[in-house]
């Protein structure tokens, strides 16, 4: 009997000891379970799975109307269900602890000193620090400059002459987008036309011009441009001198007494140019008048350029008023 009791005591003691060693101190506190929340999470995850499957099914169908919308709904809602599952998990199934901790030290003066010491002491073999630094600086700067030099090939960075070039020259015919030449009689008043230099790239900033016809008596061009508008036909660069958008608007009054006068307008910031006054700016942020292209009507009635523009085309840069355009 005593042996049985001792055996029992030993066994119990072993059990008790094992329980104690198997139950370490908890780091994350225990929390109450919530089967309802678990159900909700499972349900949401199942929804997410089904919606993701729906996405693959919708994807597989060809020629489905509103496919983009259905794909977006399927994938978006699948993610939404997943998000909802995680949120339920976060709020109901995960223990949210509040732990207090000290902020890290603002600084570490000893290590700072040691760092400084290491750097300082490392220079014990150097006698002419400044000379070495100067030489190092020179080498570094020169190598840096050399490394950056190939960037000059990115474009004509040091040569700004191309900015003045335009494809227009005396005698160049004005053609439309399909390449057909404009005749003076094709240019009606009260409307506007887009023209390009014959044989040149349409896609250059100096190419497109906008052509309008005004009553010659309404013109107030600068005296040197008196012959630039045969029959009242005027041509201006179609590229705005403010920031480079195409001047795609033409305002023409049906009944002049109650309406503003004819003007070329840019849709980007509404710079407004007066064709009758040689492209003068009458509203908006443009700082430079619209360059005018001199026109001539040749023997067969076709419109030709009488020379290059009155000034360089496009947005302003430092040298824009320094020289004229080049052909």
């Amino acid at each position, binding site marked *: 009997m005593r042996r049985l009791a001792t055996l029992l005591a030993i066994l119990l003691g072993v059990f008790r000891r094992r329980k104690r060693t198997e139950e370490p101190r908890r780091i994350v506190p225990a929390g109450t379970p919530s089967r309802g929340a678990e159900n909700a999470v499972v349900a949401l995850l199942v929804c997410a799975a089904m919606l993701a499957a729906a996405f693959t099914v919708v994807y597989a169908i060809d020629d489905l109307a509103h496919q983009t919308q259905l794909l977006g709904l399927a994938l978006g809602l699948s993610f939404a269900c997943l998000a909802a599952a995680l949120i339920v998990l976060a709020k109901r199934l995960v223990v949210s*602890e509040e732990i207090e901790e000290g902020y890290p030290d603002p600084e570490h003066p000893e290590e700072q000193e040691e760092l400084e010491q290491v750097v300082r002491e490392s220079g014990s073999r150097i006698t002419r620090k400044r000379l070495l630094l100067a030489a190092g600086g020179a080498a570094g700067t020169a190598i840096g400059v050399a490394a950056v030099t190939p960037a000059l090939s990115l474009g004509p960075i040091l040569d700004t002459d191309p900015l003045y070039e335009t494809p227009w020259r005396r005698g160049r015919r004005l053609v439309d987008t399909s390449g057909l030449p404009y005749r003076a009689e094709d240019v009606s008043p009260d409307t506007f036309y887009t023209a390009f230099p014959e044989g040149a790239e349409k896609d250059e900033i100096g190419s497109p011009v906008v052509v309008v016809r005004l009553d010659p008596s309404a013109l107030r061009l600068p005296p040197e441009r008196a012959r630039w508008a045969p029959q009242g036909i005027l041509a201006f660069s179609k590229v705005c001198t403010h*920031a480079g958008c195409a001047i795609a608007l033409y305002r023409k009054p049906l009944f002049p007494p109650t309406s503003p006068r004819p003007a070329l307008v840019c849709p980007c910031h509404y710079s407004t140019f007066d064709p009758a006054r040689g492209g003068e700016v009458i509203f908006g942020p443009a700082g430079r008048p619209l360059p005018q292209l001199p026109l001539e009507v040749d023997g067969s009635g076709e419109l030709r350029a009488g020379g290059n523009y009155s000034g360089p085309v496009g947005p302003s840069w430092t040298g824009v008023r320094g020289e004229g355009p080049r052909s």
Partner: protein
Amino acid sequence: MIRRAIRFLDERSGTAPFLKKALRYLFPDHWSFLLGEVALYSFVVLVATGVYLTFYFEPSLADTTYRGAYEPLRNLQMSEAYRSVVDISFQVKAGLLIRQTHHWAADVFVASIVLHLLRVFFTGAFRNPRELTWLVGLVMLFASLLEGYLGYSMVDDLLSGMGLAIGYGVALSLPFIGSNLALGIWGAPYPGDPSFESRMYIAHVLILPVLIGVLISVHLGLVALRHHTQFRRARRQSDRTLLGVPAFPGQAPRSLGLFFGVAAVLFLLGGLVQINPIWQWGPYELSQGTNGAQPDWYLGWLIGALRLVPGFDVTIADYTVVPNPFWGGALFPLVVLIVLAVYPWVERRVTGDRSFHNALDRPRDAPGRTAFGAAFLSWVLVIFFAGSADRTYVFLGLDYPAQIWVYRGLVFVLPPLVFFVTRRVCRELQEADRIERVREEAEEETRREVLPA
């Protein structure tokens, strides 16, 4: 099984102590701390959808004729770049979903950075020791503006092409160096060398994402090293002790839930709400334009500035020293960047407060800062809204030139007004708080006197 995995990792990398620290990193409690995470998760969606798009996008301006499904573009000449995006939208299954999600994510990414910046500013989280984190964040903000601009400009459609022309005009407008800079970037006078498309492409898919990715790591690293700030709400929250929720298990499902929530909203938008329907705009032609062309929202402040500045070039003799677009397109954003960047040091100087801060201010607790921030924001917002004055005219009939003059006036009049009003409101709120505190203390005293009896 978990034990075995952890042991495997620790034996081969020695990172168990680090992981324990990382997993128990404390997060602050307030909801506004999650705004930065929204930005981060938008970035993840951007990268994922962006990689997908690079498998289909053709970064080339070579001419091609459209032979695809969308009738109005049939037989039209366009660049390969434009054609590839039309094909992504109409030909590639789920292509339009991914493309639209990508674009929505970009708009949302910048919006969430702005919200996050506002939270950081108005709570003083940028103060010592977090000035570097603030600067890194600013660089990321401006980098993401450029990244977005390049992203939608690569498509070579009519709207974004007009925007690129304006970018060229602004580059040209830098005094003295503008022409050289523009020629360098574009490779030739506008429209530039064909390689310009490749330059935009590589900047957009490699250079800027890597830059932003590295900066995000630095930003998050700095935040973790110095730990998050916190509001002083519970008694134990102070400049010395942090009270928060550990990353695991408490914060992780929330952050993960937020990630999938962000992804959900972005993909829902990507499927249900159309964005940038470039097939309706048509391909870009230098000689053409459309009314109502606008940049994406985060560049709206610049179009507003460009429209508000009156028309003049600053000339000295034959030199056009300051072409017009410089003021609105270059100086204005530079001023905003500089003001935001130097603000932490200016505040230190003005308030004389150079000490360490881990606890945040409520906006009312710093009337000067809140007032300045509100005034500066109102200045930028006035200019931002001026940028849509033309569509306001179309929609509401308010005359355009008149609106421009009103906005020009507001630019000068509104910020000082907002400053004084905000500062007053903050002070009143502080006073109300003080009275409340005095009253509570008085009540506490009477309770203590009554109870022992």
